[in-house]
C-alpha cells in the first residue's frame, strides 16, 4: 500500500512535470498531438493516483509540509499537501474531468495547428497541476497561490483564440473580475495571519475549536475571504465574467468554467468551514447571495440564444445553490452538489461541444432535429439535462434535494423560495434548449453527425457516471441529508412542471413564446440587458479607472512635472536676461567695480 502523501504528491507532480516538459522543450510542444498524449498520460496518472488515494483513504487527515518562506523564528509559510475526505473527493472529480476533457479535446481541436494544440495542452497540464494543488492545499497561502494560478489558466485558455477580439476581451475581463474578488481574499489572509499568526488550516481549525482564535474582526476577515469565492465562483455581483468566458474552446468551458475552477470558491468555503461556523452573519450573507445568484442567473438563462451561454448561466445558478447550502449550514449538501454538478455539467458542455462541432454555430435557433442526426449526443445531453433539472433517479436529484432541505432546515425561508422557483426555471430553460436543438422544427446547415470516438467516449463515461451515481444513491441511500419528506416531492413537481412548460412552449407551440415575453416584458427586457450589470462595470471601468488614471497622468505630466519644467524654464529665461548685463564693454564692468567699492565702504561704515 502506497502512502497517501506520496500518492497525493504523484497526483500533483505528474501534470507539473508534463507542463515543465512542454514549456522548456519547444519541439515537443510544437509537435501538437504528441504534446497532447504526454499531457493526457500525465493527467491519467493523476487520476489513477487519486482513485487509489480515495479508495484507501486513512482515517486521519494526512499532512506533509515544507518550509516555503523562512523567517527568524521558524518558517513563516509552508507548502505541502493536506489529504482528507473532502480533498480526496474533489481530487477525483478534478482529475477525472481533466482527463476526460483533455481526451475529448484531441477530437474537438483537430483542426488546430500543431503549435497551437501544443500550447493548449501545456495550458491544460498547468491547469491540472494548479487545480490539484488548490485542492490539496494545506494552508491559506498555498490555496491563494494555486487559486491565482487556476485563474491564470482560465485567462490563458479563454484567450486561446487570441486573434478574436471577443476572446481577448473576455479573457481580460475574467481576470479582472476574479482579481477584484481576490483582493478581498488576500487582504483576508493577511488579516487572519495578523490575528492568528499562521496560514495552516489544521492549526487554524484547532484554534477555532479550542476557542483560542481571537474573535475580534473575524467576521470581517471571513467576509473578505468569502469575496475571493464570490469572484471565482461567479456569485452576484461578480458573476459577469463567466458567460463571457464562453469565448474559450468548449472543452475549456466544460473543465474550467463548469466543473472545477468555478467550484473552487465553493471548495474554499467548504475547506475552511470550521472558521465560517464562527461567523454566522457571514454564513447568512453567503446563503442569501447564493440564493439570489441562483434565481438571477436562471432568469438570465431563459433569454439566451447561445447554447453555451445558457449552460454558463445555469452554472452560475447551480453555484448559487451550492453557496446557499453552505451558508445555510448544510456544508455536506453544498459539496455534494458540487460533485454531482461537476459531472453532469461537464457532460452537458461536452455534449454542447459535440453539437457545436457538428453544426459550427452556437445559436440554438440555427439548430434543430439533431436528435435524429446525432442520437448518441442527444441521449447523453438528455441525461445531463434531466440530472440538472433534478429528476429521480439521477445524481442531480439527490444533491439538489439535499441543498433545498438544508436551506429549509437552516430556517432561511426566503432563500428557499428563491431556490424553489429556480428549480422550475432551470427545468424550463434547459428543456427549452433540448427541444429546440434536438427535436425542434428548425434545421441545421450541412449534414451533422455524431462526433468521433475520442469525443463520444468521454461523453458516455460521464453519462454513465451521472446515472450510476444516482442509482447507487437511490439504492443505497444518500449521504445523510435527512430532508423533510415533502421536499423531494415539491422539487420534482416543480421540475416536471418546468419540463412540461418547455414542452408546451417550444415543442407543441401551445403556448406562444412571444406571449410569454409580452407577459413578462419588463423582466424580459432587464434580463436581455443582463440587469445592466455589465454596463455598470463598463461605466466604472471607463469612468473611474480610466478617468482617474487619465487625471493622474495629466497631473503627473503637466503639474508635478510641470512645476519642475517651470523651474527649469524660469532658470533658462532669467539666465537669458541676466546675460544681458554682460555688455562686453570694459567700462561698464568698471562701473560695477566702482559701485562695488562704494558698497564696501558703505558696509564698512554701518557694520
Amino acid at each position: 500500500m502506497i502512502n497517501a502523501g506520496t500518492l497525493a504528491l504523484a497526483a500533483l507532480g505528474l501534470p507539473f512535470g508534463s507542463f515543465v516538459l512542454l514549456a522548456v522543450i519547444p519541439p515537443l510542444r510544437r509537435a501538437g498531438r504528441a504534446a497532447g498524449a504526454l499531457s493526457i498520460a500525465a493527467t491519467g496518472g493523476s487520476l489513477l493516483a487519486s482513485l487509489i488515494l480515495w479508495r484507501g483513504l486513512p482515517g486521519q487527515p494526512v499532512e506533509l509540509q515544507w518550509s516555503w518562506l523562512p523567517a527568524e523564528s521558524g518558517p513563516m509559510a509552508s507548502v505541502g499537501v493536506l489529504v482528507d475526505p473532502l480533498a480526496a473527493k474533489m481530487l477525483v472529480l478534478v482529475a477525472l474531468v481533466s482527463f476526460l476533457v483533455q481526451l475529448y479535446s484531441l477530437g474537438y481541436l483537430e483542426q488546430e495547428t500543431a503549435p497551437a494544440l501544443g500550447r493548449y495542452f501545456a495550458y491544460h497540464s498547468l491547469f491540472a497541476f494548479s487545480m490539484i494543488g488548490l485542492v490539496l492545499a494545506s494552508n491559506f497561502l498555498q490555496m491563494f497561490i494555486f487559486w491565482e494560478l487556476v485563474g491564470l489558466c482560465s485567462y490563458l485558455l479563454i484567450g486561446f483564440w487570441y486573434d478574436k477580439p471577443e476572446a481577448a476581451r473576455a479573457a481580460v475581463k475574467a481576470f479582472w473580475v476574479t482579481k477584484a474578488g481576490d483582493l478581498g481574499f488576500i487582504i483576508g489572509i493577511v488579516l487572519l495571519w495578523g490575528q492568528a499568526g499562521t496560514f495552516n488550516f489544521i492549526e487554524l481549525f484547532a484554534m477555532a475549536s479550542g476557542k483560542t482564535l481571537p474573535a475580534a474582526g473575524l467576521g470581517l476577515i471571513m467576509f473578505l475571504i468569502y469575496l475571493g469565492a464570490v469572484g471565482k465562483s461567479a456569485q452576484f455581483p461578480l458573476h459577469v465574467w463567466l458567460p463571457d468566458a464562453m469565448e474559450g474552446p468548449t472543452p475549456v468551458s466544460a473543465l474550467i468554467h463548469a466543473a472545477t475552477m468555478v467550484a473552487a470558491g465553493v471548495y474554499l468555503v467548504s475547506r475552511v468551514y470550521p472558521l465560517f461556523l464562527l461567523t454566522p452573519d457571514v454564513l447568512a450573507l453567503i446563503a442569501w447571495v447564493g440564493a439570489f445568484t441562483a434565481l438571477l442567473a436562471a432568469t438570465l438563462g431563459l433569454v439566451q440564444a447561445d447554447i453555451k451561454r445558457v449552460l454558463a448561466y445555469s452554472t452560475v445558478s447551480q453555484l448559487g445553490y451550492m453557496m446557499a447550502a453552505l451558508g445555510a449550514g448544510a456544508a455536506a449538501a453544498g459539496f455534494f452538489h458540487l460533485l454531482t454538478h461537476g459531472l453532469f455539467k461537464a457532460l452537458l458542455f461536452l455534449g454542447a461541444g459535440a453539437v457545436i462541432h457538428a453544426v459550427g454555430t452556437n445559436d440554438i435557433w440555427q439548430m434543430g432535429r439533431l436528435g435524429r442526426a446525432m442520437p448518441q449526443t442527444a441521449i447523453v445531453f438528455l441525461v445531463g439535462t434531466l440530472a440538472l433539472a433534478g429528476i429521480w433517479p439521477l445524481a442531480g436529484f439527490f444533491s439538489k434535494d439535499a441543498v433545498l432541505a438544508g436551506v429549509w432546515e437552516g430556517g432561511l425561508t426566503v432563500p428557499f423560495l428563491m431556490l424553489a422557483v429556480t428549480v422550475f426555471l432551470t427545468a424550463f430553460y434547459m428543456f427549452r434548449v433540448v427541444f429546440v436543438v434536438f427535436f425542434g422544427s428548425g434545421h441545421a446547415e450541412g449534414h451533422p453527425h455524431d462526433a468521433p470516438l475520442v469525443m463520444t467516449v468521454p461523453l458516455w463515461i460521464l453519462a454513465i457516471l451521472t446515472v450510476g451515481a444516482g442509482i447507487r444513491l437511490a439504492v443505497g441511500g444518500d449521504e445523510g441529508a435527512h430532508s423533510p419528506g415533502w421536499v423531494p416531492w415539491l422539487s420534482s413537481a416543480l421540475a416536471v412542471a418546468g419540463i412540461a412548460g418547455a414542452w408546451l412552449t417550444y415543442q407543441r407551440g401551445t403556448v406562444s413564446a412571444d406571449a410569454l415575453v409580452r407577459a413578462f416584458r419588463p423582466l424580459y427586457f432587464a434580463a436581455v440587458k443582463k440587469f445592466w450589470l455589465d454596463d455598470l462595470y463598463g461605466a466604472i471601468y471607463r469612468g473611474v479607472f480610466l478617468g482617474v488614471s487619465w487625471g493622474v497622468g495629466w497631473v503627473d505630466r503637466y503639474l508635478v512635472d510641470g512645476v519642475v519644467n517651470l523651474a527649469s524654464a524660469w532658470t533658462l529665461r532669467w539666465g537669458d536676461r541676466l546675460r544681458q548685463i554682460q555688455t562686453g564693454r570694459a567700462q561698464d564692468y568698471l562701473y560695477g567695480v566702482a559701485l562695488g567699492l562704494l558698497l564696501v565702504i558703505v558696509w564698512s561704515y554701518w557694520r
Partner: protein
Amino acid sequence: MTLEAAGFWGLAPVLLASSLAVVLSKNLFHSVLYLALALVATAGVFLLLQAEFLAAVQVLLYAGGVITIVVFAIVVTERLVGERLAQTNRGVINGGLISLAVLIWIVVFIAGAQLPRTAPPPPGDLTQAIGRDLLTRFVLPFELLAVLFLAGLLGALFFARKEE
C-alpha cells in the same frame, strides 16, 4: 607759510588742472601733453616730500618714456586711420557722479582719520636707503619684477610679429 606749503599750494592747482585737461580735452594729442605736465607736477610733489630720487625717476621714465610711447602710438594709429583721432566723452554725468561719490567717500574717510600733523625729520640719505633696501629687503620682488619685464617683452614681441 613754509616753503613746503607754498610749493604744495603752487603745485596742486597745476596738477589738478592738467589732470582735468587730460580727461576732458577733445584732442588726444593735447591730452598727452597735459598728462606730461601732470606727471612733471607729480614729480614736484615728490620733491616736496623729499624723495628726490623718485622725482627723477618720475620725470625720466614717465614724462620721458611713457609719453614718448603714447605719442608713438597716436602717430601710428593716426597714420593707419588716416585722420586725426577725435576724443570725446560719453556718460559724463554717470561717470562724474560715480567719481564724485568715490572722491567724497575717500575724503570723508581721510577727514575722519588720525593723521600726523608734522613730518618726522628725514632719516638721512633716502636715495642710499632705497638702494640698500632694494637689494636686501626687497630683493625677491625686485627679481620678480625682472621676470615680469621679460614676460612683457615677450608679449610685446608676440604682438609685434608679422601675421602669418
